[in-house]
């Protein structure tokens, strides 16, 4: 039921966001239509940070309680966080080509985002190599906690190093009226997609755990 509600809400919000982005919001004066990528690039970035924040929090919770349910949430959140980060990199590159003239440059914000993506790829690679459940959850949680260090580095990279990446203008009165409303609707739409995926993936982790337990039971009884 909750999946259906999230699916319907996410669908409606995505359509509203698209109408806002392509029809309602005015064209930005200097960059033209390509600036419209911003209305999804920024929400995807914020949701990626949020996803890894949830992974961080639930990894701590797992290490404290050793309850696998917390690891399932951490893992589910990291999974969509990686997808969001991939979308940040891809949409950023598509924006960069016509504006900067190159698809990629090793600028502070871009490089730190790429490193953050690699850190969470490592999170899943390490997990995939560990067959014993309890160890997998433990090592996953440790990387989930340490890996979160990459998130604030990405966030403050534009203040720390010289960069060609546009500076944050949302909190500096740089966005007004329909532009701000469009951005907020897009953020909320992505947020609903995040929850929809985490619900689904959490159930999948729980089911995979149950399958493993049932198989063990079956093997025991057949001996």
């Amino acid at each position, binding site marked *: 039921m909750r999946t259906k509600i999230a699916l319907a809400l996410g669908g409606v919000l995505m359509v509203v966001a698209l109408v806002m982005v392509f029809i309602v919001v005015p064209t930005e004066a200097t960059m033209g*239509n390509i600036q419209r990528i911003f209305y999804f*690039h920024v929400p995807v970035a914020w949701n990626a940070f949020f996803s890894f924040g949830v992974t961080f929090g639930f990894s701590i919770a797992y290490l404290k309680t050793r309850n696998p349910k917390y690891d399932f949430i951490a893992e589910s959140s990291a999974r969509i966080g990686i997808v969001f980060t991939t979308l940040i990199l891809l949409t950023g590159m598509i924006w960069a080509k016509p504006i900067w003239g190159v698809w990629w440059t090793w600028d502070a914000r871009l490089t730190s985002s790429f490193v953050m993506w690699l850190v969470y790829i490592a999170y899943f690679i390490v997990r995939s190599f560990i067959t014993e459940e309890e160890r997998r959850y433990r090592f996953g949680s440790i990387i989930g906690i340490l890996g979160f260090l990459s998130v604030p580095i990405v966030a403050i990279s534009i203040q720390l190093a010289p960069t060609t990446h546009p500076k944050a203008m949302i909190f500096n009165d740089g966005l007004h009226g329909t532009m701000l409303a469009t951005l907020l609707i897009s953020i909320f739409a992505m947020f609903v997609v995040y929850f929809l*995926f985490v619900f*689904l993936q959490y159930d*999948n982790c729980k089911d995979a755990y149950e399958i493993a337990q049932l198989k063990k*039971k079956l093997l025991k009884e057949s001996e």
Partner: protein
Amino acid sequence: MDNLGYLFAAYTIIWIGLAYLVWTAMRKQKANRKEIEILKEKLDEQK
């Protein structure tokens, strides 16, 4: 300065990426539930 091709590419990637993600998770959920049912039936048979 229109660059509509780039804009279209960006939105297509976002939509396809997210739709594929949700679709695979839903498919996996169905497959898992089916496997659980089969395993439970097998366990009942063994008892």
